[in-house]
């Protein structure tokens, strides 16, 4: 495990983590607005409440590492450095989007950053992660592949097939289960015999950790351990306990029949952004003015992204038939 940075470096790092969480939060809020205005279509799954997971986990990566996500992946794309305007433009379906407007919210891609999507079949990308891990080992590379998915994906066969092979072949993959308690409107305990996802690691002789997903530093540390293990050729299953503040997607109710408003409000008290902001203020690392400044900067960035997306052209009609096959 790499030595955690000290003093200023650590503060600097924490400020960066705070900024990234804020960026995600503001981006998602804007996306919700744009969706309401009909500028974004289809399914749009927001990350509000879960920011600490993507931000903490991705802080551990090198530029040549790989990332695979489900359809709830705006945050991972942003944190990985895909420009907010390219992500927003993709949600708007514009030619300037990171998938040229052909993928949309559920299918963000940026090959130049090892960001390999955005996949919308629950569990479908887990075998892909094992395959990417295999390619890394095949080339005797030192990269890792981080694979994010929700807890409901644990009930589908692909999860098991992917973990078993990653373990048998000793691949550099970190499986990050974002356990936000619900798969759409279904509480995990109603459809899973065992609700501690980490337990599944035993069946695959795989290292595992249960992680508090509302604390970005905890996520970062746990992922750092897992990534180091991966670079030594051993996969890990991380169960990160987190919570989704908004509806499953923009087409779903905010609370729904499956959870109470109180529960949601209760969870918001553990808000990862507020927590870190407080800590930084308590330690005097940042004051309210600096915080407001940070927030203003982030809001400006997101505003600019929306303007950019709005002003960008739709794909040329000929794009319909482009990229069906590679040359």
């Amino acid at each position, binding site marked *: 495990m790499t030595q955690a940075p000290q003093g200023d470096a650590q503060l600097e790092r924490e400020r960066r983590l705070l900024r990234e969480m804020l960026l995600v939060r503001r981006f998602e809020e804007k996306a919700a607005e744009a969706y309401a205005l009909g500028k974004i*279509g*289809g*399914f749009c799954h927001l990350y509000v409440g879960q920011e600490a997971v993507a931000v903490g986990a991705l802080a551990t990566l090198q530029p040549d590492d790989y990332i695979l996500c489900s359809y709830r992946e705006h945050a991972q794309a942003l944190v990985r450095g895909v420009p907010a305007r390219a992500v927003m433009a993709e949600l708007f*379906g*514009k030619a300037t989007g990171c*998938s040229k*407007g*052909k*993928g*949309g919210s*559920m*299918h963000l891609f940026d090959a130049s950053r090892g960001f390999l999507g955005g*996949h*919308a*079949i*629950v*569990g*479908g990308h887990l075998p892909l992660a094992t395959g990417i891990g295999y390619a890394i080992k095949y080339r005797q590379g030192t990269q890792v592949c981080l694979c994010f998915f929700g807890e*409901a*994906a644990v*009930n*589908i*066969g692909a999860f098991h097939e992917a973990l078993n092979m990653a373990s048998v072949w000793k691949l550099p993959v970190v499986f990050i289960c974002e356990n936000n308690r619900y*798969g*759409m*409107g*279904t509480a995990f305990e*109603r*459809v*899973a015999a065992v609700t501690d996802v980490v337990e599944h690691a035993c069946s695959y002789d795989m290292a595992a950790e249960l992680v508090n997903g509302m604390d970005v530093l905890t996520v970062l540390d746990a992922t750092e351990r897992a990534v180091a293990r991966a670079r030594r050729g051993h996969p890990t299953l991380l169960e990160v306990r987190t919570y989704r503040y908004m509806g499953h997607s923009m087409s779903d109710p905010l609370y*729904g*029949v*499956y959870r109470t408003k109180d529960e949601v409000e209760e969870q918001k008290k553990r808000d990862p952004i507020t927590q870190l902001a407080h800590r930084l203020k308590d330690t005097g690392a940042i004051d309210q003015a600096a915080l407001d400044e940070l927030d203003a900067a982030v809001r400006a960035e997101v505003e600019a992204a929306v303007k950019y997306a709005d002003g960008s052209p*739709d*794909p040329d*009609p000929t*794009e*319909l*038939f482009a990229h*069906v096959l590679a040359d």
Partner: protein
Amino acid sequence: MATLTYRDALNQALREEMQRDASVFVLGEEVGVYQGAYKVSRGLLEEFGPMRVLDTPIAELGFAGVGVGAAMAGLRPVVEFMTWNFALLALDQIVNSAAKIFYMSGGQIPVPIVFRGPNGAALQLAAQHSQAWDAWLAHIPGLKVVSPATPADAKGLLKSAIRDNNPVIVLEGEMLYNTKGEVPEGEHLVPIGSADVKRPGTDVTLVCHSKTVAPALKAAELLAGELGVSAEVVDLRSLRPLDDATIIASVSKTNRCVVVEEGWPHAGIGAQVVDIIQREAFDSLDAPVLRVTQADVPMPYNKHLERAAKPSPEKILAATRRVLYLD
């Protein structure tokens, strides 16, 4: 007759059949507590309880197999796929279990089961969530496949499907759920295997089904208006078995035909319809049969590209002009 939405017509069919036969039950993701992802099962949990309205984990292969097993043991399961896109994961159970067990067992074990859900594209759901499986499912002996276009047909075909002693595939449409129409109260059964002439005509036959019936009717209107051409619109309703007789009778009368479908062109349902027509009505054909299908590409997210990919009244009109040699 009451005016109902397509959604409520399906809901009524389910409720009536569950009231009529205690062996009928529904299972699938979100069908119970959440009242159905598209609310087709609304109210059923409250009326029939959790054994008969079963929320499943996200495990399409598994719960499709659970349905087949229950049917082998004498129940009449109605399996809901949240959308048919996810049924790709369940095809082994549909094809290798449901469609074959009666035959392989020498006729000992019927499998009275319904697999239903929205099929094909909605709006901007992108490539993985916008697929029509009409041709694939109709390819399989041992299955019956229906695809209602109106609320009345939705109720009548779903009721017939539930009473059928074979696996029946019901292809619905998210874009149809809110459409309204007159629906006969109570006992209303539409026989599986019968097409329906939705608009009589003399000059050209437009064969269509499901979501393409509306654009076909629209095209027929335009044809009557702009060109004084009388188009007969034949709604297949059932894709397996196909109602060859009705198709042949219409084309023998009009001598010209355009076949419209939502799915991809290559080996689509339309190809089979063309095969039947040229085989059985060869001498009455005054022009080649033309087809209007989805563009032969994965569905793009951008709404303009998506619209350009889908069948439309304009495309049907253009094809019709060509079979009438008006261009």
